[in-house]
């Protein structure tokens, strides 16, 4: 509370400070958000440099160490084929993180695009589009993902598509709500008066004012997507189990769970940590964008 008050005072004097800078400064003062960012940066770097950091090849099978518990040689143990779990986790980050980011990004782009058009067009277009969204979102997202994954077969990109499908209607609806608020503002009136085409009004003038809110919402969405995708992999419909993706690692470990729980607990814990980090970051970003929401 005191922090917020202290931040507010200088903002009034320095009027020229951009919104981005303000948000960033508020974010720096939020310890939980910074914790989330720190975890994310650490895990992202670890995944990028996985080939350098990983002690073993993620697909190398060490038959002397089947089911090894964590020990000095294999820090996080080995799985049923003697593959080093630490190496698989590091390499798996590449798949899991990009899966979440790409799926959320596609949802963001398509949702913003259609949401802007639908919200701005209004009337019948809006009505029909909203009814389509109603029908679309009346199928639970997980069921939709299962259906699509079944129809397309299990692979990394199909999992992304399956996860995206459930994201889009929510994203369209959310964009539309933002557009409806924005639509009545004067700068759009001005843009129209300057004889801008509809497309220009929507995408050049209106969208930049909406996109930051959308990006904020997406941060938390990435975590949710990673979590859902791991569930899809777990029931055998997501990423194929040979891939060192975290959810797929859990799925692979399912059969050995009673005797060798470390095989599933370690990747499961990593998923939880990443999702938690995305949530902390997303919440922090939302509070920083709209300090009123913070108590």
């Amino acid at each position, binding site marked *: 509370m005191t922090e917020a008050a202290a931040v507010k005072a200088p903002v009034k004097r320095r009027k020229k400070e951009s919104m981005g800078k303000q948000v960033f400064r508020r974010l720096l003062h939020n310890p939980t958000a910074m914790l989330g960012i720190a975890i994310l940066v650490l895990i992202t770097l670890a995944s990028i440099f996985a080939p350098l950091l990983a002690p073993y090849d993620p697909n190398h099978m060490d038959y002397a160490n089947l089911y090894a518990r964590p020990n000095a040689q294999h820090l996080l143990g080995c799985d049923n084929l003697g593959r080093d779990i630490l190496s698989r986790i590091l390499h798996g980050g590449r798949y899991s993180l990009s899966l979440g980011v790409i799926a959320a990004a596609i949802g963001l782009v398509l949702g913003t695009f259609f949401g802007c058009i639908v919200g701005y067009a209004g009337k019948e277009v809006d009505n029909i589009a909203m009814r389509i969204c109603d029908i679309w979102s009346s199928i*639970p997202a997980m069921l939709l*993902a299962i*259906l699509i994954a079944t129809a397309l077969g299990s692979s990394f990109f199909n999992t992304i598509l399956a996860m995206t499908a459930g994201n889009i209607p929510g994203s369209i609806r959310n964009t539309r709500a933002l557009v409806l608020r924005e639509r009545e503002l004067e700068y759009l009136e001005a843009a129209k008066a300057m004889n801008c085409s509809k497309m220009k009004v929507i995408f050049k003038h209106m969208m930049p004012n909406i996109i930051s809110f959308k990006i904020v919402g997406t941060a938390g969405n990435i975590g949710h997507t990673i979590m859902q995708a791991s569930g899809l992999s777990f029931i055998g419909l997501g990423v194929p189990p040979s891939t060192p993706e975290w959810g797929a690692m859990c799925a692979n470990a399912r059969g050995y769970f009673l005797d060798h729980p470390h095989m599933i607990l370690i990747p499961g814990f990593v998923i939880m940590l990443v999702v938690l980090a995305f949530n902390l970051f997303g919440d922090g970003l939302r509070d920083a964008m709209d300090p009123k929401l913070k108590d």
Partner: protein
Amino acid sequence: MWRYIVKRLLWMVVIVVCVALLIFTVLWFVPGDPAQIALGSEATAADLEAYRELLGLNDPFLVQMGRFMRDTFLRLDFGISYSFKVPVIEEFAIRLPRTFLLGAFSLVLNMVIGIPLGILAANHRNSVIDRGLLVFAMVFSSMPQFFFALVLVVVFALELNLLPPFGIATWKHWIIPVLAASLSGIAQIARHTRASVLETIRADFVTTARAKGLEERKVIYRHMLPNALIPVISDLGMHLSMIVGGSVVIETVFSFPGVGLYMLYGINARDYPVVRGCVLILAVFSAFVMLVVDLVYAFLDPRIKAQYVNYAAKSGGKAK
């Protein structure tokens, strides 16, 4: 009010029909030959062809779709499972109540535990209780469902030996699955309730209620809570949809013989009637509960109620 209910019911029929069309279309693209899977690898080409002809798999897309829609909606017949050779509807009679109960228990737990926790946290803002609950909520809403389910199995079934890990023989078997299915929902609802209550505390009408000298209990229970809970209730539909989707995962973990597990069998065996029936029945189930939630919501929120009551009064007061 009746007009609103009828309108929503009609709209639900439209949704269900569209969902059925969508499911049929998506499954049309599924690779794999059900005849091959049902008859095994020794089957001759003639056998396969005869089997496909028998199931009507050689007919054009629209013919098959028309047959599916007619059977499903006019005869309430979901077809006969290719691999189990049992009508899908008979399996539903056994399995659906289980999945329904699992979902219902979870949704009730979500509300009964999540909402009071949220109110508690908001009333003790920034105290130890509040911080603790927030950390709890954050961690549990970040945990993949299967992970939490397996942790519960390890702790309560394997280590403490208190509860059975798999199956549904006694009521004790239900405890872990229901907990696993509801925990992330509880965490999310608690967070949402807390945020909503904190927002309402600052509302003008609360200040007014206090200013006119109402006792604090009345301010909270009569004025603040009903308003604070409206957004939480409106989100219950979303939670239900997550519970229904998650039930597939939960049923897999616990070998819980419900609709979700049946659907997975169906998917692996390319058993189209089973998959179609399961997805449709789960979608209808969640659409129906969302309808109920919306009606409750409309009933609770005087603004929505007024809209329809006034509308009815203007149009001759036929609906009441």
